[in-house]
């Protein structure tokens, strides 16, 4: 700060404390603050020294001034004489602008080109000139500011000294500094110019899009061939898709196997191939080992038959057994409906005094009598089996413990694809028979089962479990008995066999341990359609005739086989075999032939067309002392039967020509086919044994018409 101010400040301190303080503050401030204040001060209005001093009244006086666009001094309608036309013509109005003074200046702006040229001509560098000028300006500015502050300080100081002197001091100070007044209305904007990056040009060249060449020749036959090929591919795809869908519908344990690591699955594949080789080799060995039997099976027709009337023989062929199930009893036998050389053998037990743990389902083929093709070992004894007609790899088995299982032998024999829940779903007792029925409308497979607990259950194969409903509870039509605690208990029949009507899928027959046969419908769950008082001992098998669905046969432990007609109380035929009849089956090739096996180890073949009283063939199959025969099954295509015994062995037997005589058409009806002839044959027989039509009505309870 200017040193001149210091003495004045001291003086100020003495008189006024407030003014001194403010001064002190001001002095103590840094240079920056000073600058700011200086800038602010320059903003304050400065009065020119020669400004008039007016009183308040004078200031408030309004001096009106009216401005008009009309210039009264301007002449209007100015005319000019035209010598050309010889008359006055009106001259355009000169307008309201009046030029008072005009002079052309000699100044030029220093940054214009002209100025530069002049400077260069004078030998001065134009850029240097401009910069020095601006520097000079800056210098001038600073000096002026300094002067201003100086004058301010003096002003304040003088104020402090005495109010009267103020004006004088001011008047004195201003001329002293001789500073020029800036235009206070000139507002100058401050701005900053940032660094500007130089513009650069950069070029890139892209690779042209990749191209390729393609050529073809089009002719009508090429297009046609293309379509044919595509169509075939589509058909193939459809076929594959169908197969996949079917495979997908059979949930199996195979997926789990597939999940195994790559190495093991590779090993498995290798094993599979080796297994195939072994199998082929085994077949070849069997072919040579059992060559003579194979020849017998194919060519041996008992020549004695020609000389025997009404009698035939059974020629034993192979024996099928499996070491691990030698102790089990054959509880069911069934030919595969699709592969006519394949049959299933169920191994369980029937001698309930000596229970055997474990059972098995074995699938043998007659091409390989030495070893079963498929082996399904089960925990409990297997009591019955059925093979699906549409999917010949789907087996349903009924167990001794009341469970049912479905095996998909195409996928795996090791574990069942479906198994009933042994807590909530299973039967209360032995499952005696299972039967597949037509698939439901939405393609779900389903089957029926009967058990000793008197229930007929309907099982539907859902995604991976069964849905089970009880169709009927078989109650005996007898009086209720008192239980141990005095409550009345309805007695249940123990079902032992089941068969479905071949034509009407609703109708089925159930044989019971009480010897009754119930004809029921799946549509009714409480009542029977008909009750046959068939036997005195448990019914072991009921079988519909393969050609005439109105006729069925039943066999029982009471040594008898009975042939029934639908809705007729009395049997048409009764045959007594002298021992417990384990099974009876109608032959598929004839309407009048059926076979049966007894516990004495003999197989019987009847042809009621030939002999109404005696079997046409009695063949001891196994030793009557040691073995019992339990089941029999006719092959659908080949002239052979298989019989199962109670030592886990199945024997194949060939029917001699006399046992499978085709019908001879009468001379007048040569055109009729075998099927019609067979039906006619049976009808003729039945008409002989049927009672007169008038008596076919249900028997009168009074019994007056009964003879």
């Amino acid at each position: 700060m200017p040193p001149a101010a210091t003495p004045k400040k001291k003086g100020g301190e003495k008189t006024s404390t407030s003014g001194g303080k403010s001064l002190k503050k001001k002095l103590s401030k840094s240079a920056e603050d000073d600058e700011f204040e200086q800038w602010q001060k320059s903003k304050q209005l400065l009065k020119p020294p020669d400004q008039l001093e007016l009183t308040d009244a004078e200031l408030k006086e309004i001096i009106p001034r009216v401005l008009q666009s009309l210039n009264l001094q301007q002449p209007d309608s100015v005319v000019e004489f035209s010598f050309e036309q010889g008359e006055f013509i009106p001259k355009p109005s000169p307008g309201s602008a009046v030029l008072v003074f005009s002079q052309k200046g000699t100044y030029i702006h220093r940054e214009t080109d002209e100025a530069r040229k002049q400077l260069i001509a004078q030998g001065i560098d134009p850029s240097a000139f401009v910069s020095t000028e601006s520097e000079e300006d800056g210098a001038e500015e600073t000096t002026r500011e300094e002067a201003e502050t100086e004058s301010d300080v003096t002003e304040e100081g003088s104020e402090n000294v005495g109010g009267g002197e103020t004006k004088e001091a001011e008047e004195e100070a201003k001329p002293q500094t001789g500073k020029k007044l800036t235009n206070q209305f000139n507002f100058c904007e401050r701005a900053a110019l940032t660094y500007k990056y130089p513009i650069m040009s950069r070029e890139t060249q892209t690779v042209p899009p990749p191209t390729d060449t393609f050529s073809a020749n089009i002719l009508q036959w090429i297009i046609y061939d293309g379509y044919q090929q595509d169509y075939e591919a589509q058909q193939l795809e459809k076929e594959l898709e169908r197969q996949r869908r079917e495979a997908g519908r059979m949930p199996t344990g195979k997926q789990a196997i597939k999940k195994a690591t790559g190495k093991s699955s590779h090993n498995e594949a290798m094993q599979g191939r080796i297994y195939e080789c072994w199998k082929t080799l085994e077949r070849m060995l069997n072919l040579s080992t059992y060559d003579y039997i194979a020849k017998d099976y194919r060519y041996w027709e008992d020549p004695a038959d020609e000389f025997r009337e009404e009698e035939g023989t059974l020629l034993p062929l192979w024996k099928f057994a499996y070491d691990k199930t030698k102790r089990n009893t054959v509880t069911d036998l069934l030919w595969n409906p699709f592969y006519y050389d394949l049959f299933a053998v169920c191994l369980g037990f029937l001698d309930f005094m000596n229970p055997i743990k474990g059972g098995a389902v074995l699938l043998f083929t007659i091409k390989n009598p030495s070893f079963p093709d498929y082996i399904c070992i089960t925990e409990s004894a297997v009591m019955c089996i059925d093979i699906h007609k549409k999917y010949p790899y789907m087996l349903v088995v009924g167990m001794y413990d009341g469970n049912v299982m479905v095996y998909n032998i195409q996928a795996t024999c090791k574990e069942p694809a479906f198994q009933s829940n042994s807590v909530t779903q299973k039967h209360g007792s032995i499952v005696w028979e299972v039967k597949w029925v037509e698939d439901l409308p939405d393609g779900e497979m389903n089957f029926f089962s009967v058990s000793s607990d008197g229930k007929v259950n309907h099982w539907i194969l859902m995604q991976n479990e069964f849905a089970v409903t009880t169709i009927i509870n078989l109650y005996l039509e007898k009086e209720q008995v008192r239980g141990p605690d005095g409550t009345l208990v309805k007695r249940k029949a123990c079902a032992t066999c089941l068969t479905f009507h071949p034509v009407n899928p609703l109708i089925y027959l159930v044989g019971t341990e009480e010897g009754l046969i119930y004809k029921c419908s799946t549509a009714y769950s409480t009542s029977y359609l008909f009750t046959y008082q068939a036997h005195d001992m448990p019914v072991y098998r009921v079988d519909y005739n393969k050609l005439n669905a109105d006729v069925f046969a039943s066999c029982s432990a009471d040594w008898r086989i009975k042939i029934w007609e639908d809705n007729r109380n009395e049997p048409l035929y009764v045959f007594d075999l002298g021992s417990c009849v384990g099974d009876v089956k109608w032959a598929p090739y004839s309407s009048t032939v059926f076979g049966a096996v007894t516990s004495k180890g003999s197989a019987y073949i009847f042809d009621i067309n030939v002999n109404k009283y005696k079997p046409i063939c009695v063949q001891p199959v196994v030793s009557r002392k040691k073995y019992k025969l339990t089941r029999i099954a006719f092959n659908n295509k080949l002239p052979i039967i298989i019989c199962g015994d109670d030592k886990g062995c199945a024997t194949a037997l060939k029917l001699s020509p006399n046992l499978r005589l085709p019908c001879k058409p009468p001379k007048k009806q040569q055109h009729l086919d075998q099927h019609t002839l067979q039906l006619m044959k049976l009808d003729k027989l039945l008409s002989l044994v049927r009672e007169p039509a008038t008596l076919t009505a249900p028997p009168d309870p009074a019994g007056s018409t009964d003879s």
Partner: protein
Amino acid sequence: MADLDQADKKECEGKKIIHTYPIVKNSDMHEEMKLECVEIVVTACEKHSANNEAAARMIKEQMDKKFGPPFHVVVGEGYGFEITYECKTLLYMYFAGTLAICIWKS
């Protein structure tokens, strides 16, 4: 059953079915573009079934509009060609049993 099926098949073969659906014989377009392109071809060829030139024009215009020019389209019953095309823009297909259509962009 099997015999019946076979008999059916034989009958079918005897009839000589005329296929009219589109078959894409060769294409390096991506799936969406291919589908759209086949759609365009089917529409055009059905609309101008008697006039291959009009069909080709229609296909070309549509393709240009959808995927940007310049597309080239050949529609015909018998011809040969050798072309250079920009990758991912070729479609060579049959339609209506007699037509071969080739679309590419250069």
